[in-house]
């Protein structure tokens, strides 16, 4: 549904996107994570037709976001990182204006507004001025506005920023519902636990390019088994330096982190490779207290992928 191929975009000589590639299937709830300045917002603006690209291709539903911008706009709903509202309008007027802006006419217009009011939980406050709403309510209103024209693809740029825990839970539930309705969602966020909860896959972006985690994945499958690269946490009695030296001689083993009496090791290959590492450690004289496979959560993978890369 979303196909981005080798996309590049510069601002005054600074590369915001530098050959980023992304493929999101229909109906997926796809996350996008990366440090500040990684290019997430630029990618979202490009996909939402707001920014032209320098090179590469970007398509939504098979339509070019540059050459067929108007058709793409019918397909997408875009929620920017800092969405604005017209404070002096009432909730209903705000939705009516955008329903008009999306060329919804007659009964379709009224139905869309009523549905948006219901969806946002703001039906009771439809006559209130937008400025009287709380931040969370405004965010719900903007999301409801984004959904007015029944988009097939939602582009959400850090939608949970500034929301309280309850509002975040509600947002996650709403996004799951929308995915269940068949809407494809691309969401960028710094709140990794939220993404881990709702996303099917997560793409890593850094310095405008596809970033990779320690296992070499640029896209993390959250609902599917990973490839044959595993992480093991080793606890040692005493100094860990001898064990680090032993590690270097074992094929397929790579040290990710080391601390006093603790190592984090990546092993590429079959189970025999894991056994070989343990054997080498024991025979080399390392006092191994614990040798445990560790399924890394998204936060740990993110930390390992972007460690030392913060701008």
């Amino acid at each position, binding site marked *: 549904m979303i196909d981005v191929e080798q996309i590049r975009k510069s601002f005054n000589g600074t590369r915001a996107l530098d050959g980023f590639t992304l493929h999101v299937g229909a109906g997926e709830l796809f996350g996008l994570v990366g440090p500040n300045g990684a290019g997430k917002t630029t990618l979202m603006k490009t996909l939402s037709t707001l*920014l032209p690209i320098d090179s590469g291709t970007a398509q939504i539903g098979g339509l070019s976001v540059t050459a067929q911008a108007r058709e793409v706009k019918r397909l997408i709903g875009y929620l920017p990182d800092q969405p604005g509202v017209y404070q002096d309008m009432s909730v209903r007027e705000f939705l009516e*204006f955008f329903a008009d802006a999306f060329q919804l006419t007659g009964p379709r217009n009224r139905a869309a507004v009523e549905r948006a009011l219901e969806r946002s939980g703001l039906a009771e406050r439809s006559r209130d001025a937008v400025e009287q709403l709380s931040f969370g309510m405004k965010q719900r209103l*903007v999301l409801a506005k984004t959904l007015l024209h029944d988009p097939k693809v939602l582009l959400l740029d850090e939608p949970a920023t500034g929301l309280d825990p309850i509002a975040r839970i509600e947002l996650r539930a709403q996004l799951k519902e929308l995915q269940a309705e068949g809407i494809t969602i691309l969401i960028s966020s710094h709140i990794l636990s939220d993404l881990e909860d709702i996303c099917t896959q997560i793409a890593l972006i850094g310095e405008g390019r596809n970033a990779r985690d320690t296992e070499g994945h640029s896209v993390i499958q959250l609902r599917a088994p990973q490839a044959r690269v595993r992480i093991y946490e080793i606890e040692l009695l005493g100094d860990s330096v001898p064990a680090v030296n032993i590690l270097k001689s074992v094929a397929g083993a790579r040290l990710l982190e080391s601390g006093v009496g603790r190592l984090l090791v990546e092993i590429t290959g079959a189970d025999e490779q894991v056994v070989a590492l343990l054997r080498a450690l024991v025979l080399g004289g390392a006092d191994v207290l614990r040798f445990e496979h560790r399924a890394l959560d998204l936060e740990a993978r993110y930390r390992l992928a972007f460690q030392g890369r913060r701008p």
Partner: protein
Amino acid sequence: MNPMIRKELRQRMRERRGWLLPSLYLVVLGAVVTFAYFVTTADRGRSNIQGSTVGVALFLTLAYSQLALLLLLVPIFSAGSITIEKEQRTLAGLLTSLLTSAQIWWGKFVSSLLFVLLLLVTSLPVLSMAFAFGGIGPWEIFSATVTTVLILGCMSAIGLYCSSAFQRSVHATAVSYATVIAITVVTTIVFFVRISIYESAHHLTTTRGWYDIPLNIRAPMYVNPFFFLTASFAPPKQLYPAWITCAGVFIALGALAVALTLRNLRRRGDL
């Protein structure tokens, strides 16, 4: 109806300035006309004074002071029009809707111009005072009004261009005012400095006709709104070339501003 126009008008009329400015405008205009009336009649003492003289004096005072006031007000309505969407971060929502850049521009333009036209219409009762004294015909009122609308339309378009080019309303408004000063004050100063240099160089002392002045010296005045308004007081058969030239210049300036504004809106890089 273009949804932008409806939205803009609704928002404008809800602002405090929606009623405050027309009120202040009428008070100032009324004061100016009253002052002009007393100045015109005071010089003549107790002698008989022609009603038409008073009528013409009031009309000219009204026409020029109205133009001056509206030129001061136009940037307030137009220069903040697009920057406010940037400041409140609603421009992205507009540009990702099915509204075209032209529709967005048109909505902004119509609403800012309509508000200024509202001021123009509210001044009609004051204008009717001048009409009552005589000396002024429908043609003068018509041509002065059309000219004022043309000037205001052009200045609104320039204000909108500034609004599309800057991120902050304060900057866009400042540059809009600088443009107003440039085309009114600066062009007048340039003209008078150059004409005095020309006359002293050619040892000319007698008053000469407008078209005896070389075109390169006259040229700055064709972008001067007050000269444009003055040209509109000519009889219909004498509108060419001065009024027509001014109209052409203002329409061209306005069209250029529209084209640049649409280009800025389509670039969308500075949301």
